[in-house]
């Protein structure tokens, strides 16, 4: 009996000890902030009292905020998330509450925000994060500020949606880049919409029209004519073709309304901005005017060259025949023929150096006479103004000087040690020809040519292609005098 009383007492003591321990533990938990609510009983009715600030006011404030906002404890655990945040992640609060931010946000964004709420600094610069929201990338500026929620110290984290701003900035930058590309293109670039209205045009394009291009209709601003072979009637067909999915490249056209009417090479490609149908057409126009001009010049030169080669060959053939007829020996033929061809070549060389435009008479004289005498020495004198001669007269005069010089070397002023040659270029008058006189003196007594050979024929006939050209050869006792008349039409 006594034992059972002792046992009951001992049990009571153990129970009381247990209760005291529990009470102490409860008080310690309240004191050190491990709990944030207590149950109090009054008038037989229990009630829960929350310790610390009333968080409902804070929640209401967050709920009204336009940016996404959450309250987290120091571990990053969600204590509250407002409607916008729940909308971003398409989650109910029941599924979000108590979760760590790192479980909700994608890795890189969670790391950045983790650094924000782990920072010791009170003021931390916001970070920019982006993640997919229903398949679309969105950008947020995230900032975190420390707050007290009930008994805990945590953070209010806000997510300001920058997506539209970032998109607008990206679009604006893309537009600037596109404009810069168009502007810096050397070729004319024109962009038009589906209705053929011009939306962009660079400087080179503006130069093709007399009116302002942007805002104008393509076919009125730059009307083009296409060669029949292309089967295209007007520029609008290029636009329609590329809008329909068939870009056209390098089509020759003529822009009759453009300043200085130009030949152009046109290409048209669809303007694809999204996956939908093309929003317009990009046209490039390469100016072919200079190339066309060069081609025409080249054809002209080819014809001229052909003509000259034929003339020269005919002249060589004639020189060959006439020389053969007037020379009695093969050696004589070789000497005379080579001399005449070289004379022709000398004038040709000079003309080639002058682009076959015109030659100075003094130059021709120098080239033909210098093989026989020092043209700058005492024995050769040139007086009078120099003349600039067109190719036909230059070649004829070259041959005449050659024959006169050869003759002077064989029989005239240059055959001895003391003879001289005076070339006098007479000033131009109203006469249809300009006169040049070749006068030899100081040589041996002159006899007329015993036989009028080819040399004489060359001198007499080379300039006879014009009624105002020709020569008169006189065998004065003092020396040969040759009066040469050059048609004024061949003097530049």
């Amino acid at each position: 009996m006594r034992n059972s009383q002792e046992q009951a007492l001992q049990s009571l003591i153990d129970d009381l000890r247990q209760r005291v321990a529990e009470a102490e533990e409860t008080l310690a938990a309240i004191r050190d902030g491990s709990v944030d609510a207590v149950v109090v009983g009054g008038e037989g009715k229990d009630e829960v009292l929350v310790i610390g600030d009333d968080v409902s006011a804070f929640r209401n404030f967050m709920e009204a905020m336009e940016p996404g906002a959450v309250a987290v404890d120091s571990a990053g655990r969600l204590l509250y998330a407002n409607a916008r945040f729940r909308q971003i992640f398409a989650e109910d609060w029941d599924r979000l509450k108590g979760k760590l931010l790192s479980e909700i946000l994608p890795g890189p964004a969670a790391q950045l925000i983790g650094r924000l709420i782990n920072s010791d600094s009170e003021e931390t610069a916001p970070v920019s994060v982006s993640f997919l929201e229903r398949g679309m990338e969105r950008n947020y500026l995230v900032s975190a500020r420390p707050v007290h929620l009930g008994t805990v110290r945590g953070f209010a984290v806000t997510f300001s949606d920058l997506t539209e701003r970032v998109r607008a900035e990206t679009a604006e930058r893309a537009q600037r880049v596109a404009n810069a590309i168009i502007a810096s293109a050397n070729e004319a670039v024109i962009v038009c919409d589906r209705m053929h209205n011009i939306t962009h045009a660079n400087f080179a394009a503006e130069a093709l029209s007399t009116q302002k291009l942007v805002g104008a209709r393509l076919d009125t601003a730059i009307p083009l004519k296409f060669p029949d072979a292309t089967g295209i009637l007007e520029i609008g067909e290029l636009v329609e073709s590329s809008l329909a999915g068939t870009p056209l490249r390098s089509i020759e056209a003529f822009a009759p309304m453009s300043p200085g009417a130009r030949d152009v090479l046109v290409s048209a490609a669809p303007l694809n901005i999204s996956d939908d149908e093309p929003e317009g057409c990009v046209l490039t126009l390469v100016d072919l005017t200079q190339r066309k001009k060069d081609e025409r010049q080249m054809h002209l030169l080819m014809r001229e060259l052909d003509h000259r080669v034929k003339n020269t060959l005919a002249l060589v053939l004639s020189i060959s025949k006439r020389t053969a007829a007037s020379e009695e020996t093969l050696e004589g033929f070789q000497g005379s023929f080579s001399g005449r061809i070289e004379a022709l070549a000398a004038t040709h060389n000079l003309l080639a150096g002058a682009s076959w435009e015109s030659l100075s008479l003094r130059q021709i004289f120098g080239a033909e006479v210098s093989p026989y005498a020092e043209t700058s020495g005492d024995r050769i004198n040139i007086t009078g103004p120099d003349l600039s001669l067109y190719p036909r007269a230059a070649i004829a005069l070259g041959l005449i000087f050659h024959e006169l010089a050869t003759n002077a070397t064989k029989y005239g002023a240059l055959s001895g040690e003391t003879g001289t040659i005076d070339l006098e270029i007479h000033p131009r008058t109203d006469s249809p020809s300009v006169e040049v006189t070749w006068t030899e003196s100081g040589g041996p007594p002159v006899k007329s040519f015993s036989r009028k050979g080819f040399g004489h024929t060359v001198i007499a006939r080379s300039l006879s292609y014009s009624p105002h050209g020709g020569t008169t050869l006189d065998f004065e006792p003092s020396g040969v005098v040759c009066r040469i008349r050059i048609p004024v039409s061949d003097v530049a």
Partner: protein
Amino acid sequence: MSMEETSTRKLILYVAGETPKSLAAISNLERICREHLPGKYQIEVIDLKKNPQLAREHKIVAIPTLVRELPIPIRKIIGDLSDEQKVLVNLRVE
């Protein structure tokens, strides 16, 4: 009764609505059980804000409090269960 059934913990977590400590306690308990007692636990969360009278059964005063009802003897852990070691010691069958 099998050993498996004997070792199943029946846990009751008393919370007060969505106070920070209550949310932390729920989150911590779920994580600890998931990681350390997979398939061997049963949690009941009682919101005393909604039903304050339920505090009487286990004489709950401070919230949050976790009660290990099974296996006996009953154990109480007061606080947000952020001390994982303390929670594990109290949940382990002795």
